[in-house]
């Protein structure tokens, strides 16, 4: 019977250290200046190094396909705006629905009369706010994913129908 019932779960993006590592040569040759391919992958995600530093990827024919896949995978990251804490907002995908604004626990705690009840922010302390139809981040230091007591908060990622928010650093 072609009735398809799905329980939605948050999907892991390929744009993760592991996702990148899988496409690297995995030889740990250190040509890039990193101790291993894995640490190269981490730095790529944090935009601290660029793909062309891994010269084997460009020189050896066997890696060509992987290199193209990597370039494709990293493109949104290069184009996206990344805050200093690693929160990436893909402005081209966001359409300002405000789901993340209302769902973010920091927004809720800081703004019980605004974000918490579904409205636009009425406090300056919120992290996410929609401006000119796109979400913008501020006060990222209060994000639950950072600092000493960090937790793996997904509250802005799960409700986004456009997959416009990412924390590629993991």
């Amino acid at each position, binding site marked *: 019977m072609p009735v398809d019932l799905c329980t939605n779960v948050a999907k892991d993006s390929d744009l993760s250290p592991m996702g990148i590592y899988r496409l690297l040569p995995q030889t740990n040759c250190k040509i890039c200046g990193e101790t291993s391919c894995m640490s190269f992958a981490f730095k790529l995600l944090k935009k601290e190094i660029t793909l062309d530093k891994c010269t084997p990827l460009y020189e050896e024919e066997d890696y060509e396909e992987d290199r193209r896949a990597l370039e494709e995978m990293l493109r949104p990251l290069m184009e996206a705006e990344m805050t200093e804490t690693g929160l990436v907002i893909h402005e081209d995908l966001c359409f300002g629905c405000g789901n993340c604004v209302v769902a973010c626990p920091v927004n809720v705690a800081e703004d019980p009369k605004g974000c918490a009840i579904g409205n636009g922010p009425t406090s300056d302390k919120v992290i996410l706010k929609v401006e000119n139809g796109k979400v913008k981040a501020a006060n990222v230091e209060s994000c639950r994913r950072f600092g000493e007591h960090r937790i793996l908060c997904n509250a802005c990622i799960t*409700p986004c129908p456009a997959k416009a928010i990412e924390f590629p650093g993991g």
Partner: protein
Amino acid sequence: MICLGCSCLCDDIECEIGEEIKVGNACLRGFRRIDSINENRLTPRVERKEENIDDTIKSAAKLLEEAKNPIIFGPENSTLETEKEAIELAKKAGAIIDNMSSFGYSGYLVEKIFRKEVNTCTLDETRDDCDVSIYWGCDPMSSHPRMMSRYSYYPRGKNRQRGWEQDRDAISIDVRRSLTAEICDKFIKVPPGRDFELMKAFKDVLSGKIPKFGDKKSIMKIGNLIKKAEFGVLFTGLGLNYSINHIDDFIDLVKDTGFRLQPIIEGIGLNKLLFDETGHVNKINYKDKSYGIENNFVEALKGDIDTALIIGSDVASNIPLKLAKRLREINCIYVGPHSNLTSHISKVNIPTAVCGIESAGKAYRMDLKEEDLEKIVDSNFLPDQEILKRIGDAL
């Protein structure tokens, strides 16, 4: 300010219109509506030739006067004042009046709600109390982008303090995985035309029987969620159009579940005004005060309509090409702020102000909450209600 980008009528919009336009809190659709006040504006034209506004009004009045079978269609997002003038004009011209609500079942359901035959509730009640929301044949994330963040799913309500994570469930039922389906906890994909079977399956679960449709365990699970809901709200949209042939059974199901019904619909102000006057929400012919399917815009176009006045609705983009061509053949008058396909195929174009930005008025949210729209900037364009009134006066 209030955004009139869709029938959510969001009332928390921050807006600065200076050299740059800055808009806070509105979704992209709402922002674009404000941002577009300097783009793509309609020029007054008759038969493609630029005219002054008075002459376009005269031409429109003349076409309506000479018409044997005129129709007035729209508006989608406008003021109650405009909707009132549209009805007055229909009376004067002896015209049919109809709007988008007669495409699909939205109008039918709204009429049932106005007659108090089906329960409904306000969006504020939804925010404060709703624990289970169902989106059947609708995709609010695309059509009404902030509805779920402001009311039905994400916000913390008076009696739903733990919000979407623990206090609310959302179920999407659709033919495809829409944006709404993407974020609901549960999604049932139903092949076109088979909603009726799913409906029966739910009825079975409600009465303690084993459902005969789809994956029984999942249907049971969702059925029981529906059964246990304390304050359920069912949103419907145009998707019901092609999949439910048994609309009255659908209404029975809604009653059985105790859910409140909220059709997601634009231009409900016109529906309410018409209902108060005639007992029906659309498809009225003021020539003989008749009501019926033959007065539906699409049916009328297939029939002997010779003149159409379209108010602020790009209807040509929403009907089959063949009918759009027919619209081009007849005498079509377009009244609205921007140029679009409908204005392009119309013989007379009359530009208006963008209401809620360049003109003020009142409007109904989809749940009939009345809002006051302000005028934010000055413009040279006349409000649509004034244009309609002047056409009426010239008749």
